[in-house]
């Protein structure tokens, strides 16, 4: 097993945290997220010397998202989406509120089909354009738009209430 090159280690150190958050949104579970991230990086590592170093994060993100979609196709994890979600929290003074918020969002996003989930994460967490999202998912822009539309429709009413937004900017940059 050859050793990691310094630039690969630097990349993992610099971009790992953000990619891990993306993986968490895709999987809804911290252990699966780490597993997914390591899977993607292990796929990329043998090609690292060759990969264009201009935008390695975009390349790894693409591998990450597509690995998740293929995971989902290959193995059923036993998760079943629920029509009714727990009542979202309305108070945020609780120290566990971050955990609760994460659970509610994870549950709602995880209830989406994998492609819709990927579209939501890429467009609204990674801030990719419709065209960039289509390129990552190897589909048309029309598909991205329709998947976005369906995902938003599915999420309506299932995500936390407006109280979260009132102090939402407080945690930006954390």
């Amino acid at each position, binding site marked *: 097993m050859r050793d990691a090159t310094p630039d690969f280690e630097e990349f993992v150190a610099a971009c790992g*945290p953000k990619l891990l958050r993306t993986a968490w949104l895709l999987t809804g579970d911290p252990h699966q*997220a*780490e597993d997914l991230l390591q899977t993607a990086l292990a796929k990329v590592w043998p090609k690292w010397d060759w990969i264009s170093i201009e935008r390695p994060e975009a390349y790894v993100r693409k591998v990450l998202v597509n690995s998740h979609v293929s995971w989902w196709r290959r193995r059923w994890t036993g998760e079943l989406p629920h029509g009714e979600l727990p009542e979202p929290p309305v108070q945020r003074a609780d120290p566990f509120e971050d955990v609760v918020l*994460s659970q509610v969002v994870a549950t709602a996003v995880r209830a989406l089909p994998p492609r819709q989930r990927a579209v939501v994460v890429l467009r609204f967490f990674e801030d990719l354009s419709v065209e960039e999202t289509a390129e990552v998912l190897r589909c048309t822009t029309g598909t991205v738009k329709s998947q976005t539309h369906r995902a938003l429709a599915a999420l*309506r009413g299932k995500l*936390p209430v407006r109280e979260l937004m009132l102090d939402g900017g407080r945690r930006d940059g954390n």
Partner: protein
Amino acid sequence: MTGTDFLEPDRPDGPGGADTGEEQELRILLQQAAPHLPAPEDRIQRILARAARTRRRRRAAGLGAGLTGGLLAAVLAAAPAIAPSSPHAGPLGVAAAPAPAPSTAAPSPSSAPEGPDAVGPLGVAISFRTVSEMVVNVPKGWLTQENDWANPEVSIGTLANQPIADPTACADKETFCLPVGRLRSGGAVLTFRLVKDPTRVAEYVETSTPAEVTTLTKECAAVGGDAELIGHRTVTSTTSLSVIELDACLREPTTVVTQQVQQVLESIRSFERQSPTPEGPTG
């Protein structure tokens, strides 16, 4: 659901429209909700170990699949004999192949081993001038030819188990054609190409899977081929990395020929790793 849901059900929105308020709110919410998880200290080691495991597994799978592919090809090749009245093509199109036309090619001396047990070790190692970092072994009795196309993406060189025509038999040096006469039964002509398209390079770099059946190209059909296999290997030099495509055009392939194609693919390697000096192409 309550009246305070931020994604309100009745809001008309267009999927392709401008960023709506709800989309902006969703952005903020996802940023808030995605936790900052700690990274395991040995993440790099785990990644490298996974990559090494994957490589080992693929190599093992490649060997197994190569054997399976050979057996499959043998069964398909035998299909007309088993069901001679079948009017429809099998997966390789063997059953539907027209009655063999009289071959115009001169009969080859028994260049290919005959019989299902005749697959032996490969013969000499050669390299082609166009892509000199690649070394490949040639089955005993096969012929080789350095191709003279202007573009190594079109062809680097040819191996065949029957006589190879003069390269000038092809119309020009830009359009690919197979420099053989009509393939005889059990005939094989293998073309090596350099893959340069970045997307395809990314797809095939470090691939170690066996050659797989692909759609018959018109160039292969033109010389009487009825099955085509394609495989990829990566070779490196001190300064670069090259993905090589092996395209095998076959006519009524036998198990032996199919296994020889897989052997040739497996033998593709980088020049630096080869201790004996390779010979130049012959034939």
